[in-house]
């Protein structure tokens, strides 16, 4: 079992966990924090926490759900500690865009930047739910199981978050944010 091997100090097993889950955790952290530096710190902290607590994971549990709960709690702790000096820095320039013409690329690029800022203004609980559903494409059932929430609550909160985000987001507008 992979978890046992990590607990026994097997670096190969640990690397497999990093390969499998780092992209999802980094994506969650990046869209939650809104800047790459904080996202790297959050991701690293979550993996340190994972390594330190891996012996507490019970084998009959769902590892992915357990990790997601840990990541969500860490993101919210981070938000609580840093809400007074939030700093949404410019994001990486190499954001992927859909394959349209150059003008459309530019509009998409600008809209993505704006969207990240808007996501960052959402309530942290809503933010995490939207990232899991709309960025990482988890099903409602997976999110409900991972975060230990009723399915109806997850659906209604995601709908509420989308409405809020859509109202905050103005295509080609909201300068100065």
């Amino acid at each position, binding site marked *: 079992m992979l978890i046992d091997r*990590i607990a026994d*100090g097997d*670096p190969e097993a*640990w*690397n497999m966990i*990093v390969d499998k889950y*780092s*992209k999802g955790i*980094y*994506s969650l952290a*990046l*869209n939650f924090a809104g800047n*790459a530096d904080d996202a*790297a710190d959050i*991701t*690293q902290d979550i*993996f*340190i926490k994972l*390594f*330190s607590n891996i012996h507490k994971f019970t084998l009959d549990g769902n590892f992915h759900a357990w990790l997601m709960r840990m990541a969500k709690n860490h993101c919210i702790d981070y938000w609580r500690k840093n809400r007074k000096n939030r700093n949404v820095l410019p994001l*990486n320039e190499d*954001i*992927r*865009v*859909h394959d349209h013409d150059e003008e459309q690329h530019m509009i*998409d690029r600008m*809209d*993505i930047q704006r*969207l*990240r800022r808007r996501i960052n203004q959402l309530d942290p609980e809503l933010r995490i739910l*939207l*990232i899991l559903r*709309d*960025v*990482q494409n988890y099903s409602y059932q997976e999110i409900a199981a991972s975060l230990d929430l009723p399915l109806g609550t997850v*659906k*209604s909160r*995601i*709908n509420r978050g*989308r*409405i809020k*985000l*859509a*109202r905050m*987001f*103005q*295509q080609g507008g909201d300068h100065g944010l």
Partner: protein
Amino acid sequence: MDCKLVEERISNYIENNLSATEMDAVREHIQSCGACRDLLERMERVLYLCEDLTEEVPFFLKNRLYNIAETRVAEEPAISGRTITVLKWAAAMVGTAVLLLNLLYFTSIVPPANRFLHLAVSRIETFVVEAGAYVERISESDRNPFLGLFMSPDKKIDADQPFPDGATNEGGKNG
């Protein structure tokens, strides 16, 4: 169907998770309501852009994550977490026992225990006094055992002759 009901169903409408009747009702409302149509368009745009919000983990971060296992194993303390927990519990139990003994000794909540503790303390006091007297007797028998340890037997100070080498008290003063 009014705007509030459409808002409640808008995610399910986009994801095609409504019954055919509800889908038709929402569609009909949206065609006639500018605000709801605007909300739908914006939401679809947001969801379209969300697909591009994932990024690869930067190379430097991936390396840091790989290194966590080695770094953390090297930093692990010599005493395991379980040993520390046992030691903490032992310290807590000793502390509690000391407090309890104090309580029983200085109060009469449980008179037999109080009497027993006083008896035990008086026995310990007696033992300490007797041990002290014994040590004193040994020291007196050899007067100055510490000097004797560092001097050769022929140069040992004679306890009855405080001024060896024939010197007198007066001579010492004059000399």
